[in-house]
């Protein structure tokens, strides 16, 4: 195995060539540590790392840095999410150093949902730098041991650098180029937006493979199990950048209300099976939104357990 960049479990799993399986955990709308730790238990042993979201959908929650540290203390591996909406470059570099000091070794660099969608739409946003520059910043701090201004860092933060990719937003033709740019900036791994339109994702991955991007970066396919047809309809209508085919909605509607969750899970399992075989896909990122307790069952049925110990 070549030299590790951060030594995180996720990095080791991916470098060893295992099919990675990551999860997600939203911090609470409060300082309820007990509730957070309860959610951790569903993820323990089922995933290689857990994304800790950063005020997702621009709703104020416990800080992703604090929740990531709580996760480290509980023996799980966080993937610390950082958005460009709420921090300028000073706060970013400071929190990156702090994250490393607290034992965090994975970071996901994001633009962040616009504050107008959240619960404090009156807020001023920052956007000092954008997500691609944030990737380059974390990489520079790690590999060159320097701040943005070229001052030397006393103990550089070692992060396995992640980024997001949405193959379903427009303009579609540019999406693979944006992904290439994130990889060029220094992304070690990519987690895609929730995939529902498999035809489009197959086409997207073909472009990725044709450009050789999968050889330069580990790409994890995003999977969100639908809880019911209502959730699918809501996401289709109200969540920007989501591509939910009518076929999927009809499939969920085609079964009794009480069976729709199971149908949603079945679709997710079929997806995971296909991703295991799909060229260029190095793993799955499971976003079971407020459904963490279903993760053990999904992981079991997806036959991704036990998780490798590297």
């Amino acid at each position, binding site marked *: 195995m070549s030299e590790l960049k951060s030594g995180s479990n996720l990095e080791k799993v991916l470098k060893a060539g295992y099919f990675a399986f990551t999860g997600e955990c939203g911090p609470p709308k409060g300082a309820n540590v007990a509730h957070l730790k309860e959610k951790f238990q569903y993820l323990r042993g089922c995933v290689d790392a857990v994304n800790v979201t950063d005020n997702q959908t621009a709703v104020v929650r416990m800080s992703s840095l604090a929740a990531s540290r709580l996760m480290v203390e509980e023996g799980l591996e966080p993937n610390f999410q950082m958005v460009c909406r709420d921090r300028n470059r000073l706060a970013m570099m400071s929190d990156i150093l702090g994250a490393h000091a607290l034992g965090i070794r994975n970071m996901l660099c994001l*633009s962040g949902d616009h504050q107008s*969608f959240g619960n404090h739409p009156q807020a001023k946003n920052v*956007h000092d730098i*954008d997500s691609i520059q944030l990737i380059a910043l974390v990489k520079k701090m790690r590999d060159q041991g320097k701040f943005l201004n070229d001052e030397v860092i006393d103990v550089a933060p070692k992060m396995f650098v992640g980024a997001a990719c949405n193959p*379903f*937003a*427009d303009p579609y033709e540019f999406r693979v180029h944006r992904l290439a*740019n994130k990889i060029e900036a220094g992304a070690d791994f990519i987690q895609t937006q929730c995939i529902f339109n498999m035809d489009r994702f197959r086409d997207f991955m073909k472009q990725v493979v044709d450009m050789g991007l999968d050889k330069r970066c580990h790409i994890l396919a995003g999977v969100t199990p639908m809880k019911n047809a209502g959730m699918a309809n809501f996401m289709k209508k109200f969540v920007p*950048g989501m591509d939910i085919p009518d076929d999927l909605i009809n499939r969920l509607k085609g079964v009794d209300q009480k069976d729709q969750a199971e149908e949603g899970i079945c679709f997710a399992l079929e997806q995971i099976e296909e991703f295991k075989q799909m060229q260029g896909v190095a793993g799955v990122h499971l976003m079971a939104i407020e459904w963490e307790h279903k993760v053990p069952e999904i992981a079991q049925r997806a036959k991704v357990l036990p998780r490798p110990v590297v």
Partner: protein
Amino acid sequence: MIVADRKPIQEILAMVKADKKILILGCKGCVTVCNVGGVKESEILASTLKIARKQQGKDIDIDVRVLERQCDTEYVAQIKDIVNDYESVVSLACGVGPQFLSEMYKEKKFYPGVNTTFFGGAVQHGIWEERCGGCGTCSIHDFGGLCPIARCAKSLLHGPCGGSTKGICEVNPDTICVWDAIVTKKMAAGEIGDLMGVKGFKDWRSARDGGPRRSIREELIQGNI
């Protein structure tokens, strides 16, 4: 130009509620072009205020003047002989006007009669859109002549975010995704390569982040030009 919107009449009424003699001071600059603070709008505001105050049973004496501009001291000085005739002045210029007035006539009260919004232009009669954020280091030529700093809700520099849908910004259905426009233009020109690579980190010192700005032209100060 600088674009402004009308303030609600109730807000202006509340500002001048204690005053019995006021001046409405319009401006022939940008606010005339965007139909919010010129001669016509100043007279309409005067009439509206008079009617509203009459309904309240409190008459008000209102005069109207319109200056060439309110962002030059030489024009602002033109009211020096009359400004003391009024208890207060409602300026219909952009936010610059009532400040220049307040700085020159320190004892007087000047109220902003409009909400100054952005640097932009009219895309059709009655609709203005933002085009410039005044960041102080223009590089729109790097983006097909379109500004992602001012026109992308997240000021992204490397392409559209995941919320861009059919050319529309996720933040406002009436706003185009400027990145969709940039990408479409660059792709059509076969210049997609221009959008690749990590752009230099922006130096915001030239923007408002560097503190209030001054623009100094020595040759003008020295009177050479």
